[in-house]
């Protein structure tokens, strides 16, 4: 029988325990590294939920695909074939250049570069925390992924892996305001750091002295420093420079090259062991 005034733990005590546990969790999550297994299994716990939430979108896009007309498909096919022809021409050149580069490096006596291991991943469209920029992908620890791997799309750098579950993982985008990317300017090899400010189409260069040689339209590529991003992938284009001599640093803004608001297919990269040294 259920008594109306049953003796139970008081609400205040419950709240106290809950708040205490939450604070322990918050600090544990923020200030400790490691615990890889615990983190992975916790993230795996919600993977089914993410796949279920993604289902309606999949169904919509499937039905949208089946409603494509024959002409649309034909023209899309044509465009893709043209693009592929152009790219395969570039690949032929690329292979020649790689060989040449190897020879030149051998002549210089520096270590050879090897291609990175990579894997294709798809973005699951689920809602994420509104205070940060992240996406969820359909690969995880089962595919060999681990935290801090670089993620790119067909245009440029997208971000890096944070929370990895066994079948899903999260990509922290370069525009998140806790993310910073070590880059160099392609034109003159000046190294700098570009950080997110929480807007999906703006990045900011941090601590730029007034004397730095930077112009609007300069392309920033990853510098390979920092041990997360392999060298040479395009990150952003400089869009705005404000040099106010009254301020200690110039304000330099850039626009990400990857279209971060409409990413669908991504490539996850592994770092070469050689580059880590």
């Amino acid at each position, binding site marked *: 029988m259920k008594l109306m005034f049953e003796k139970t733990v008081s609400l205040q005590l*419950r*709240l106290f325990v*809950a708040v205490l546990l939450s604070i322990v969790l918050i600090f544990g999550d923020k200030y400790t590294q490691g615990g890889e297994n615990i983190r992975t299994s916790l993230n795996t716990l919600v993977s089914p939920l*993410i796949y*279920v939430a993604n289902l309606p979108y999949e169904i919509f896009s499937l039905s949208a695909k089946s409603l494509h007309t024959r002409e649309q498909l034909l023209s899309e096919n044509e465009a893709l074939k043209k693009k592929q022809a152009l790219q395969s021409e570039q690949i032929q050149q690329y292979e020649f250049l790689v060989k040449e580069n190897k020879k030149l490096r051998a002549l210089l006596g520096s270590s050879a570069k090897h291609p990175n291991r990579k894997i294709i991943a798809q973005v699951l469209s689920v809602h994420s925390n509104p205070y940060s920029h992240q996406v969820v992908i359909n690969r995880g620890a089962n595919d060999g992924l681990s935290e801090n791997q670089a993620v790119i799309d067909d245009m440029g750098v997208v971000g890096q892996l944070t929370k990895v579950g066994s079948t899903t993982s999260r990509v922290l985008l370069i525009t998140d305001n806790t993310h910073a990317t070590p880059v160099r300017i392609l034109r003159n090899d000046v190294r700098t750091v570009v950080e997110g400010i929480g807007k999906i189409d703006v990045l900011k260069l941090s601590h730029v002295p007034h004397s730095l040689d930077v112009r609007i339209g300069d392309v920033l590529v990853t510098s390979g420093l920092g041990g997360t991003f392999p060298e040479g992938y395009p990150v952003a284009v400089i869009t705005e420079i404000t040099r106010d001599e009254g301020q200690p640093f110039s304000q330099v803004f850039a626009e990400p090259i990857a279209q971060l608001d409409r990413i669908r297919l991504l490539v996850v990269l592994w770092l070469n062991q050689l580059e880590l040294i």
Partner: protein
Amino acid sequence: MINRQMLLIAVSIFFALVMALMPLPFSLEPFRPDWVLLVLMYWSLALPHRLNIGTAWVVGLLIDLATGSSLGVNSLTYSVCIFVTASNFQKIRNFSLWQQSLLIGLFLTLYHLMQFWLNHFLLGVYFSPHYLWPVLTGMLSWIWVFLLLRKYRRHFRIR
């Protein structure tokens, strides 16, 4: 019998979780009501002996994991909100529906301000008024959530 009732409550929370994670068009994204919190609030008002702070904490942790926020943020804020509703359930139950929805708006504001404050401390975000849109849509949704879940509760005789 008790297991069946807990299962039915769990099903409603599961649906709320799916609604909270489902993709919305980009322009509607800032207006998404906090479905999970609304459902938890309803159950904590209707059946405070079945569901209160403990459940809210666990569901908050699930939300943290599923939306990728720092662990513990939603656990903390959900627990505080459910504490407020569960400790005043007898008063709140007696209000009319629109008065309830105003009160719920107040609790949702509390929730979002706590969320913002924690995220300001953890991620360094700055306040923008559009973080508070879900309060308004949540107030409007409360009426429907309340009526729907009351029907659900009465139909399956969850006590």
